[in-house]
């Protein structure tokens, strides 16, 4: 049956990785039983079924299987995505394909599929157009292309739009500069009075300045000012952490003051750090060819964290041809879903557009050209670091280019995990061991895969701590489940 084949492209672990949290996964497993469903069915494109809930009518659940990442829709009121019903249905199809009858999708499913196709087509054509324009720009033909567009669409309107953009930018710059002046005074006042007074300060001391930065359209700076409050509470080395954070803020303020003297990459980085970011659409439309990379991207793993109610997902990719690492950064508020599903352990042939910066790391997937493969490639094909020292050297280079760099991903060969006093350490081929972040919950799994022998691991590091993302085992690449790592 087709549904069987389609769901079998995803391993059970990969299906489980689609869950927004552990509770949803548990509930979804509870619903992956035939008697929980009325008329579960599937076709080559979708799965659907009705599941009795607390309401009078059963919930209608549907899964679009046409894309490498399945899409879900359910009539239940859950704000989680996919909800437990969606997970339950796809798990049921994976476990018990014969329970699902093969049928033509009913109206409520085919309408949704149709709607999704139309939306997809629109997005694709937009992307293609953006790609063509970017290509033309890269070839030096953009001006003539846009001038011919202008002729067709009316040149005055185009000029007007450009003027209004420039005006908008000028205003934002003025607003930001005023905010930075206030921040500078605040920082100098803080330093004059000394860090020692900070532990006695109320949280509003930081919050007020953070709010001012938000007004100045510098949310990145607002976050750093708020972080100061956390640094002050950081325990015995709070003063060092606070001073380091103050240094980074100062560097940013200073950088913006000298923005026009810096190279374009660093300019973009500073703007990015301030929170003056490009929209994804603009990026897709404006990125030149040199900022686009077509590669076979292995999804190394995901790390989740949260900042109050904002949930952040860092998805790390490794280009198997280029050896480049990329970060897909996604945000979701409270229980709302992340827009895109990425399944760790799979790889996809795709074009990635890099956000401009002095050490480009963050990217955006613009075009998926090939299906995601269920397994990672052989060990020998992968570029990786040989020792912790290698990684440290590379991080020094990265920091030289982007002093505000926080996380980076890397693959290291020959790491041997071992336990010491109940904490996990990773020892490199030089015999140097580093501690793994204590929140990593799969120490025993890593040890089981190792058996005391070295492994090839992918990991995320913030310069001080290591968080394993995945491991190459005899059965291919295995991504660790990082669902529980929230709060890092």
């Amino acid at each position, binding site marked *: 049956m087709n549904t069987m084949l389609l769901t079998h492209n995803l391993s059970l672990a990969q299906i489980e990785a689609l869950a927004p949290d552990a509770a949803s996964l548990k509930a979804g497993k509870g619903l992956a039983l035939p*008697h929980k469903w009325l008329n579960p069915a599937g076709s080559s494109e979708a799965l659907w079924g009705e599941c009795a809930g607390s309401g009078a009518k059963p919930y209608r659940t549907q899964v679009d299987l046409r894309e490498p990442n399945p899409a879900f829709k359910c009539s239940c009121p859950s704000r989680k995505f996919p909800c437990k019903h969606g997970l339950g249905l796809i798990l049921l199809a994976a476990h018990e394909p014969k329970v699902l009858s093969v049928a033509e999708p009913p109206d409520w499913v085919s309408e949704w599929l149709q709607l999704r196709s139309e939306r997809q087509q629109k997005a694709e054509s937009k992307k293609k157009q953006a790609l063509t324009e970017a290509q033309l720009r890269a070839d030096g033909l953009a001006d003539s292309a846009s001038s011919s567009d202008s002729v067709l669409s009316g040149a005055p309107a185009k000029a007007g739009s450009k003027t209004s953009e420039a005006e908008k930018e000028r205003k934002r710059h003025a607003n930001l500069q005023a905010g930075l002046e206030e921040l500078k005074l605040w920082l100098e006042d803080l330093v004059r009075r*000394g860090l*020692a007074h900070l532990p006695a300060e109320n949280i509003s001391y930081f919050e007020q300045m953070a709010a001012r930065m938000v007004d100045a359209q510098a949310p990145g700076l607002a976050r750093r000012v708020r972080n100061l409050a956390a640094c002050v509470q950081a325990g015995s080395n709070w003063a060092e952490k606070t001073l380091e954070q103050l240094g980074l803020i100062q560097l940013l303020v200073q950088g913006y003051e000298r923005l026009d003297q810096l190279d374009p990459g660093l300019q973009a980085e500073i703007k990015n750090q301030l929170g003056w970011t490009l929209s994804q659409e603009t990026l897709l439309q404006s990125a030149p060819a040199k900022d686009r990379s077509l590669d076979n991207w292995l999804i190394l793993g995901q790390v989740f964290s949260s900042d109050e109610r904002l949930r952040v997902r860092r998805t790390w990719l490794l280009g198997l041809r280029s050896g480049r690492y990329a970060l897909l950064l996604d945000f979701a508020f409270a229980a709302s879903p992340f827009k895109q599903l990425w399944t760790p352990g799979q790889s996809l042939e795709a074009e990635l557009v890099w956000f401009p910066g002095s050490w480009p790391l963050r990217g955006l997937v613009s075009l998926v050209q090939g299906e995601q493969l269920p397994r990672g490639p052989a060990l020998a094909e992968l570029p990786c670091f040989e020792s912790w020292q290698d990684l440290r050297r590379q*991080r020094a280079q990265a920091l030289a280019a982007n*002093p505000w760099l926080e996380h980076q991903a890397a693959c290291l060969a020959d790491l041997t995990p071992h336990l*010491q006093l109940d904490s996990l350490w990773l020892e490199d081929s030089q015999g140097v061991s*580093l501690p793994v972040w204590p929140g990593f919950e799969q120490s025993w799994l890593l040890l089981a895969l190792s058996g005391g022998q070295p492994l090839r691991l992918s990991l995320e590091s913030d310069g001080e701590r290591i968080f394993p993302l995945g491991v190459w*085992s005899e059965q291919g690449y295995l991504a660790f489940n990082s669902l529980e790592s929230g709060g890092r």
Partner: protein
Amino acid sequence: MQELWQNLLKTALPGTAQAVLGKLVLPELEALITGPHTPESRLLRQAAALSLYQRAGHQFQSRFAERAAVAEPESRVLCPDALLAFWQKLLSYWPQARFKPDWRLLQRETLRQLANRGWRFPHHLLPELLEMGNDWGREDPQLRLEILPLLGRRGIWLAAGPATAQAVKQPWKWVFDPQLPQDSPPLEQGALAASLYLRRLRQQDPQAGLRQLQALWPKASPTLRSALLPVLQAGLNADDEAFLETCLDDKRLRQAAQELLSHLPQSCFVARMQARILPLLSLKPLKKRAGAELDLRLPAWPTDPLEAAVWARDGLEKASFSSLASRQLVAEALLKCCPPASWLKHLLPHADQAAARVELLELVQAATYFKHLLSGLVGATLNFADAEMAQALLARPALWQRNPHGQLLPLALVPVLSLQSQQEAYLKALAGNAAGVPPQAWVSRRDGQAVGQGFVAAWAERLATELQASASLQELHLLGISPSLLLPPFLILGAAPEWLPVLETSAQHLLAPLLEAEPESKALPDKSLQQAAQDLSELLRLLELRAELYRLFAFTDNPN
């Protein structure tokens, strides 16, 4: 660099209003801080430059670890993917299962069959498997023995806590290395591992197990002794008696030893218990009519100090003889240690055994101490696994009507019955003739002989007849015919693998239409009927999975 940073902190903490900021001694850093600046801005710029230098040159917090031992290469073959997928599927039913003990048995059977084929689990599933042994193995040590071979060398290495010089909290303390020489229990791995090792040895060679237990006894601490003594339950036999008798001398071991000895009908312990209670049990002629009644005089604490010491050694306490109620309980406990045959021999020595059993039950039913006598007789039947007495007890529904233990008593007796007796009783219950015993008493799974073709056919025939009379789940529900009576777990889990396809086909043919006829929730008027539909669906699933397991084995065992 660290010194510079500390100097900077020395100014930053009190603030530039109170402390003077020095210059950076590194010219390349100082050069970065150009132009006229206030002391505050200067400090901030120094902090920016220095912190960046520090982060870029940050040495990871590292240490040279002592090398851990490396796991030995695997000698067992990796379990085929299809069976691993089956295992995952089996586990996925667990959270919602209502027939949990039956699912547990299928899990155990699966593990045993995988191990018997010389397979092992893949490394990434080992922590999960070990955790299962931790969680479920507490109540079911046999499960741990089923898991052990599947761990392979890697699992044994992992459970030992990858050996380093530093103490590591080892979470799976029940695991021992089955490849180590079997001349003594692995005490260095703790009491749990030693206990499991001895349990396995007792199953294979009870005398060797006893010998090893006796050998370690002089050196064992009281705690270890308490932990290890219950392993004698596996393969318990008359050879264990002498050792168990010595354990009665230790107050801390007395209860466990007494419990084990009370299962040995020829033991001196049982003889002593009989001597204390049987003389108090007698037939007394009725005053007003012919016949006799069963009389029980309650035991009293011996006045002779030497005799009292022997009683105390056997676990009887003087304090228990202080009131009428407690003496009744002592009498009940003593009666449980008397094999049913000894009751018959003592009370009705000349009667035919079958007739004597019936007569004894009549006497018990009419006795003044009915509650204690019944409880004692049932306890004795269970202790000595007397199938004939169990059958006689279950065939006398009048006993259950006055039975203070409710339905638990017949349920407890079913495992003592012979499989054939259970099957016959089940078929009668399915036909609506449960003989006063709750029908579900006959459905539970039991170890031992596999259910064969004859019974599978008899079940299908009887079920078809019943379903002709009552065609819907609702009607069956109203008649009190539960899903487990329609498809009993002892049949699902006991059917010999070669008859599973027949059983599965019959079950699907006869029972699946009951579910298909009720697809809409409207057709299920109350929650209990909905539950019945779910239960039947779950039992069919259990059967399907067991049949699937052996289909997979048929393929893997004969791939050609």
